[in-house]
């Protein structure tokens, strides 16, 4: 079998369902692949390692990809894992912020990922609020605790499939304000990236085929697939992941290798308008499709 290494974006969690299920159900083996799954602690490392040729494939975020390519990293999206945004602007259900307009003059926490300010700026704009009208605080590691304890009135960068459930478990109701409903072009939250110069397209195509099969299995058998996932490791088998699994399920890319060029073009333009990338690159610089 061909050896292949995949660096996840963070520790294993339900976002990685298709990869884990493909591994557990032997779909990689069917494709003649022996996949090593590596879970890092810092989401900014995987694309660097893939670009450096230290991994065959890495999981990253579409917004990050635009920035990385602009900075000259030899990287291209080769597949999609989660095909909708997961990011959301999280507030308290019964808090003072009921709509975007209520954010004026309030504290918003964020955890640096690179594009949060741009997303926030775009979301605030329709309500006539500028970034200067809110106080941005980097809360780094404690997004939901900062919100729940009332130190900030909203946080951006929370994942809708996790943080909402976390708050529910703590007995505090949260509200998600979805970026794609407030002026931000829709994008793929989790994507597969590889170094276009060194990648083995055939291997990647087989990898994506296996995850596609796994995604279908998950959609068809949500409960069995959860059991398979939860059985892989003791620390994954908990209430939060069970809830998150259900919430993530409809967001997995059903066609992982399919590329929506328009999405990438729109987001590149969006980032350029927001001043985060210096030039608008063609989609071919950002993403490719690999076919078997």
């Amino acid at each position, binding site marked *: 079998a061909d050896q292949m290494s995949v660096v996840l974006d963070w520790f294993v969690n339900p976002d990685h369902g298709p990869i884990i299920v493909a591994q557990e159900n032997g779909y990689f083996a069917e494709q003649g692949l022996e996949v090593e799954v590596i879970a890092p*602690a810092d989401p900014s490392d995987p694309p660097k*390692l893939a670009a450096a040729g230290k991994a065959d494939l890495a999981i990253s975020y579409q917004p990050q990809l635009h920035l990385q390519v602009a900075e000259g990293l030899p990287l291209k999206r080769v597949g999609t894992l989660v095909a909708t945004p997961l990011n959301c602007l999280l507030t308290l259900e019964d808090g003072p912020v009921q709509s975007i307009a209520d954010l004026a003059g309030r504290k918003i926490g964020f955890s640096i990922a690179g594009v949060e300010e741009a997303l926030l700026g775009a979301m605030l704009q329709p309500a006539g609020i500028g970034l200067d009208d809110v106080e941005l605080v980097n809360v780094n590691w404690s997004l939901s*605790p900062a919100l729940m304890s009332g130190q900030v009135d909203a946080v951006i960068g929370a994942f809708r499939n996790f943080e909402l459930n976390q708050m529910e*478990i703590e007995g505090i109701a949260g509200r998600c304000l979805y970026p794609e409903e407030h002026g931000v072009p829709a994008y793929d939250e989790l994507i597969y990236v590889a170094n276009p110069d060194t990648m083995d397209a055939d291997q990647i195509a087989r990898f994506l085929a296996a995850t596609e099969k796994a995604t279908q299995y998950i959609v068809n058998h949500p409960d069995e697939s959860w059991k398979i996932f939860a059985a892989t490791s003791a620390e994954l088998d908990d209430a939060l992941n069970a809830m998150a699994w259900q919430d993530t399920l409809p967001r997995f890319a059903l066609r992982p290798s399919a590329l929506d060029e328009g999405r990438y073009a729109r987001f590149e333009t969006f980032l350029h308008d927001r001043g985060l990338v210096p030039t608008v690159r063609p989609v071919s610089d950002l993403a490719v499709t690999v076919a078997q």
Partner: protein
Amino acid sequence: MKYLLPAALILCLWQSVVWVTDVPAFILPPPAKVAVTLWGNRALLAEHAIVTLSEVMIGLLLGAILGMVTALGLAMAPRLDRWLKPVLVLSQSIPVFVLAPILTLWFGYGLWSKIMMALLIIYFPVTSAFHDALVATPPAWLRQAEVMGGTRWRVLWFLRVPAALPGLMSGLRLAAVYAPIGAIIGEWVGASRGLGYLMLLSNGRAKTGLMFAAVLVVAVMTILLHAVVNRLACKIENKSRGQAEPSL
């Protein structure tokens, strides 16, 4: 034993902080809740603790050895000192997330990149304290050794090193305290096992109870390690000063 009382003190302190400041449980859970989580996840914690403990041990061992060797080298070559000290100092000022990709690039995703990180943290206090002590040998002893015709290396080994042992011990005490947190930080370089991984995971998933249970395990590990090293250090210090062991 004699650790029970301080432990009780810490728990009381913790509980009263929770009561007095009314801090929410998802930020600082009360001891009782952590204890329940700890007990409920004892198998999980034990499994990850073993991984961390082995990193701690390897890191401490390598860090101590490397620190001692560096301090000896610097003591033997005061010119090198001038060149190497800034490099050492600099190495301590680089944050882990800057080093992480470099370490994984060079050492892979296995145990070694974590141990290298832990080592970098443990290494410095040992080097620094031992070196400070090595260059402080009483000049009269050095003069006497010179008159006796001692060779540089043997003077180092039979005179300067024994005289500097209290300093080394001071450094090792610090190293014992930093070794567990060093291994935890090492696990931030990328790991799927170990208490550091478990903490980051629980933190990312707001499982504060489990996170604090892991912190508690690390804390106990640190205190025990410090106690063991402290005991050894006291013996060696007394020997170096020619003092009797305390009669207890």
